[in-house]
């Protein structure tokens, strides 16, 4: 006979609460964000600070897309759509929220409340994006490869067109107070939504960079992360192991969309006006390139690739019109040299370990 304690330890033996393992990563996240926030102004000028902000936003975007395209091997081409949802909703909450609560937008005396509004908008935007991720994730259960790519591409374009149809922005506080819900969707059509204060400073952006990376990396290394990667390698075998395909595919879409929404909401608070083209395929491709270049499934790869791809156009700025040609050439060379991306499915710190021989070529079963 087993004792009750044995039964309980069998039910959840790994759930033992280890405070160090639980809290330390988050403390590190905050410290990193503080470090970036306070150190970079000493080293670089305002222009490069804005580059660092954009870099952070795209790291969040690339790492989150990697959850779908890298971890589970589904091919989503609509990530910009989720970013745009987060971006518009986040900006809307801050802008119209400020008008309602304070009567004006961007007043320095309202900065603390404004920042709180931004965080509320970020959560709202991310949750809405996650909801959209759920809807887009459902067809992924029936569609593979190219077909799923087309569906997700279509999703991004639908969001773009819907945003173009939105009514004019309302800037009069009294009008907003009179009909807040109707005004909220005044996203200003094709012109783009202007005037959101830049509350997303380096601290907030890099805090979310750190949080996103920790969550993505934990997902990858947890037992459910194994489940994600197994789906990517062999769906039938994964199901035969007892992996619930439906649950994991949809979960991947929802999580990726959530953090895509976070990235978009942060971006629209950096002084960049969200516009409908943000939801289009151009932006989605930019993020896909980061994920592929970094290595499908590699969190650190996505981080590094996003850094490189945000920095490269800046560093090549002096070359003017040759810039894009050189950018494309560099991409081609990188893919030729490292066809599986920078790190493949591994992480940067796995590279020195030689005990994992990689299969030659694509490495499939015969």
């Amino acid at each position, binding site marked *: 006979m087993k004792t009750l304690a044995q039964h309980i330890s069998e039910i959840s033996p790994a759930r033992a609460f280890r405070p160090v393992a639980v809290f330390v990563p988050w403390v590190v996240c905050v410290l990193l964000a503080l470090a970036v926030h306070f150190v970079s102004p000493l080293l670089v000028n305002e222009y490069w600070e804005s580059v660092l902000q954009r870099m952070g936003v795209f790291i969040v975007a690339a790492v989150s897309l990697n959850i779908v395209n890298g971890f589970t091997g589904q091919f989503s081409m609509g990530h910009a759509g989720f970013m745009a949802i987060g971006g518009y909703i986040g900006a809307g909450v801050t802008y119209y929220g400020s008008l309602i609560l304070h009567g004006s937008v961007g007043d320095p005396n309202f900065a603390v409340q404004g920042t709180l509004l931004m965080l509320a908008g970020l959560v709202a935007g991310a949750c809405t994006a996650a909801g959209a991720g759920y809807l887009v994730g459902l067809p992924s259960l029936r569609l593979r490869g190219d077909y799923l790519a087309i569906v997700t591409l279509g999703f991004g374009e639908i969001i773009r067109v819907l945003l173009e149809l939105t009514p004019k922005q309302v800037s009069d506080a009294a009008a907003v107070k009179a009909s807040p819900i109707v005004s909220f969707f005044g996203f200003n059509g094709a012109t783009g939504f202007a005037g959101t204060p830049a509350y997303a400073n380096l601290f907030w952006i890099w805090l979310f960079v750190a949080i996103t990376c920790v969550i993505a990396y934990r997902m990858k290394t947890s037992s459910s992360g194994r489940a994600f990667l197994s789906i990517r390698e062999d769906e039938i075998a994964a199901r035969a*192991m007892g992996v619930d395909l439906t649950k994991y595919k949809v979960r991947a879409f929802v999580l990726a969309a959530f953090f895509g929404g976070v990235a978009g909401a942060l971006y629209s608070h950096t002084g960049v006006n969200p516009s409908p083209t943000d939801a289009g395929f151009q932006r989605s491709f930019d993020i896909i390139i980061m994920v592929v270049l970094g290595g499908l499934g590699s969190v650190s790869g996505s981080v590094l690739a996003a850094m490189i791809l945000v920095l490269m156009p800046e560093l090549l700025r002096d070359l003017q019109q040759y810039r894009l040609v050189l950018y494309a050439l560099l991409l081609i060379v990188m893919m030729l040299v490292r066809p599986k991306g920078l790190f493949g499915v591994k992480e940067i710190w796995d590279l020195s370990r030689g005990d994992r021989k990689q299969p030659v070529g694509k490495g499939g*079963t015969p």
Partner: protein
Amino acid sequence: MLEVRDLSVSYGAIRALHGVSLRVERGEIVTLIGSNGAGKTTTLRAISGLVKAQAGTIAYEGQSIAKLAAHEIVKLGMSHAPEGRGIFPLMTVEENLELGAYIRHDHSEIAKDREMALTLFPRVRERLKQVAGTLSGGEQQMVAIARALMARPKLLLLDEPSLGLAPQIVQTIFKIIRDINQRGTTILLVEQNAHMALQIAHRAYVLETGAIAMEGDAKELAKSDEVRKAYLGVA
């Protein structure tokens, strides 16, 4: 333990199985033999929930499982080593084994089963850290079986474990299958290699174009003229 009745499965317009009935008793090795395209893989997939049956019943330990999803069936103690090995090629052998125990959380018991599997397959133990896609075909097959054992199945479904292996390795694999059975696991074995399969099985079914053509004691079937001509290559 397992009772399949009038099982029919179609892939779109293609009718792969029409009315297959079979039964597996606790402790047995039952083999299902038949030529290419007869529907052996389809039968196993329907049993483990990887494809949906159009008609028929599947009862496992007295419970109807025809409507259950694959991951729910695994939890009932049925484990399927799919055709063509179906290992995870980019993961290490060790990670493959861990995924075999994906549905379990009893860590100390998992460690025991892992030890047992590695005792059965010493070759797998030597390769734990190697990426599974770089193993030889025979080694991959061993990983696939070892991985299926990690679920601690009561019923193990094996789909052509001898596929593409050298005769010597086939001998080893079949010996291990018998060992696994003697340790208490019931086995439903799908095979092309009728000769070997009939040697280790207690009972056998012959599947022809989606229906059971013959069934009976494995040794008896091995002696019957039809089976000798069609599946054992004896004139």
